[in-house]
């Protein structure tokens, strides 16, 4: 039965995370962008919300909450409304934990999940993207060759959040090149593994608070137990959809931040003796932004709902992500435009949101639901 209403529990989560994003994350956003660092205390506070731990099964010390992509999308939007860098940072361990919870072998879960079920922030992450302009999840260049019952990984990765401090990474590579999404496996690579080199921290246009790295994998040997899901492997298609839904939800968050700021500014700022929001040329821009934010969010929720039904939701997630990414960029750009010259000045956050929003078209696999 059609319903557009979040459950009471989801509304509570939205309000809690939303308040945290507003009161704690937002004030830290500009300093994080300027200084390229996120305060440890803030990350610790975010952990207290149980962003990762809540989904860890009780037997491993977590709360064992049923995971929901819709709930995940709600959380991602709220945090990104505060700040995208900080949102991606505090949610990064999910990139490692969630695939293990859903698709990992009992041994893999026993080995890694107890650490992630701890109350403090435990850095972990995943390596998905590769440094090609036309990077394609269907055609990964990083290869995992079968050797002596195990695997050897070769290739390069980029945009790996928290790689330097991560205790373990989930590295995705083509074990069956040419087989598209079905030919990709995830591999657990622990910190300091031979053949794994973590490069310098990347310097990006946006997301400047988030530490991301390039990785080099050169003859990185792994045992068979390193493969996510063991012999069964993983459902990579579903993982890509979960990533896309998360990023799309964050795009909505950035768009909403931009819209709210531009709306409030337009009501304050006067030109020709009246608030500029009373001019149709500005008001219509804002109206269009509001419509596209709602449209994006509904596409995200619908894709997430398909995921929650157990479907892979490739088409829905792909369309939702591309739509939300484009909308987010346009909305952030409009926000800068509404502020005019002031939008260009770093005193206001809209220029930062424009830089951050530009990333969504490029990014894949940087967050999950």
């Amino acid at each position, binding site marked *: 039965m*059609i319903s557009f209403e979040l459950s009471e529990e989801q509304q509570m989560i939205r309000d809690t995370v939303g308040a945290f994003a507003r009161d704690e994350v937002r004030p830290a956003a500009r300093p994080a962008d300027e200084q390229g660092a996120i305060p440890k205390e803030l990350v610790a506070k975010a952990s207290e919300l149980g962003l990762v731990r809540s989904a860890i099964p009780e037997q491993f010390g977590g709360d064992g909450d049923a995971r929901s992509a819709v709930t995940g999308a709600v959380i991602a939007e709220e945090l990104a409304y505060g700040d995208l860098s900080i949102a991606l940072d505090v949610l990064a361990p999910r990139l490692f934990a969630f695939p293990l919870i859903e698709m990992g072998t009992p041994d893999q879960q026993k080995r890694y999940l107890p650490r992630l079920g701890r109350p403090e922030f435990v850095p972990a992450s995943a390596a998905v993207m590769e440094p090609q302009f036309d990077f394609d999840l269907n055609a990964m260049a990083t290869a995992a060759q079968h050797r002596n019952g195990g695997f050897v990984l070769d290739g390069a990765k980029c945009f790996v959040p928290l790689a330097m401090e991560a205790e373990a990474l989930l590295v995705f590579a083509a074990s069956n090149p040419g087989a598209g999404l079905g030919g990709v496996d995830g591999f657990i690579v622990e910190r300091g593994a031979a053949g794994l080199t973590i490069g310098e921290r990347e310097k990006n246009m946006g997301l400047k608070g988030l530490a991301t790295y390039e990785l080099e994998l050169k003859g990185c040997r792994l045992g068979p137990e390193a493969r996510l899901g063991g012999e069964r492997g993983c459902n990579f298609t579903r993982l890509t959809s979960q990533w896309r839904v998360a990023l799309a939800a964050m795009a909505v968050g950035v768009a909403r931040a931009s819209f709210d700021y531009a709306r409030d500014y337009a009501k304050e700022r006067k030109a020709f003796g009246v608030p500029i*929001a009373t001019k149709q040329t500005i008001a219509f821009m804002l109206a269009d932004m509001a419509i596209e934010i709602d449209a994006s969010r509904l596409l995200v929720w619908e894709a997430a709902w398909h995921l929650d039904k157990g479907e892979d939701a490739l088409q829905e997630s792909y369309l939702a992500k591309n739509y939300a990414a484009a909308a987010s960029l346009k909305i952030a750009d409009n926000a800068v435009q509404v502020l005019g010259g002031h939008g260009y000045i770093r005193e206001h956050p809209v220029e930062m949101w424009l830089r951050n929003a530009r990333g969504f078209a490029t990014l894949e696999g940087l967050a999950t639901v």
Partner: protein
Amino acid sequence: MIDFELEPQVIGRLQMYHAVAEQMVRPISREYDEHEHKPPTQFWETMWTSSRDSDLTPGSGRETPDPKRAGARSQRNLNTILSTEELCWGDAGLFLSIPNPGLGGAAVMAAGTPQQKERFLKRFREGKPKWGAMAITEPGCGSDSAAVTTTATRVGDDWLINGTKIFCTAGEMAAEKSEGFVVVWATVDKTAGRAGIKPFVVEHNTPGMTVTRVENKLGIRASDTAAIVFDNCRVPMDHLLGTAEVRKEGGFKDVMATFDATRPLVAAMALGVGRAALDYVRDFLKQHNVPVRYGISPHKLAAIERDFMDMEVNLKAARLLTWRAAWMLDTGKHNNLEASMAKAKAGLAVTHITQKAVEIMGPAGYSRRELVEKWMRDAKINDIFEGTQQINLLIVARRILGYSSKELN
């Protein structure tokens, strides 16, 4: 709990509507486009018998949910939205021509007393095909509906209505060619502005009401669009819907309440036309072995794949906004903002989708041998009637900015 699942019985009914659209509507679609003003009598008869008491009566669109149906709230508006999309997938013009209470019925539902609802709407459950119409637009005022100059003057126990109305959907059928009625909006007090504007039910063939013209249009040609002149047209006192009292914001609020229910409906019409074009292009690409590859790097997508996905996702976005607006109505939530959002998005999205479809199809798109060009013409009206794109943006803007119509106009 977020849910996009249609219940099995809803899906079953939609399949039925789809079959009607495919087998009964599509085959006569071109005929009634080429022969404007020719009445599709047989289609009307069939729809009249089969759609009475169904959810295809937009006029009954604003009922409060029945709390007795524990757990399963009534989703009447949503169901109407769904069947509207399905039938407009067949033909939007023919859909609009179906005998039913139409916008006149919607006005009765929004502004009438329970007794008036029963009295004026009963006819749609019995006898021969009938139409209801709404007359609000005038030659000198369209979007500015608060500026209506048509007057209603108290004379004894009657109202005398004087003025000219244009663009009345199904106006001819409602006023002269069936036992229907026209709801005409007229001012009872010119000094009171929008508060003085009231809806009056004028019965068919009431002396003083004359259809002076039936328009020739770009699209939706199967639907009659009438100009109606009211010349000392006398209607009984109790044909005024609601109260005669001139309150601040009173009368116009009723117009707005009507729009909150009908804008999602127009958005749903747009969805049907847009989906017709999208389905057609999808089949065309399939026949010509042109793949649409979801999930690959956008760098590797051909222009046509991008175009198609763009059409598809915009239609879907419009659909979700439309469903939301209808769902809010069903759950008793105020949906003024969301109804305008849905209408603005769907009207424009489908205008673009159908234009792109003509482009993609090449000569077949432009030719009148196929229906694609017709859908492009039909689609355009959805960005105009029930509030143009611009009026809906204005409403959205006022809502999000917290401005009155005085502050933002």
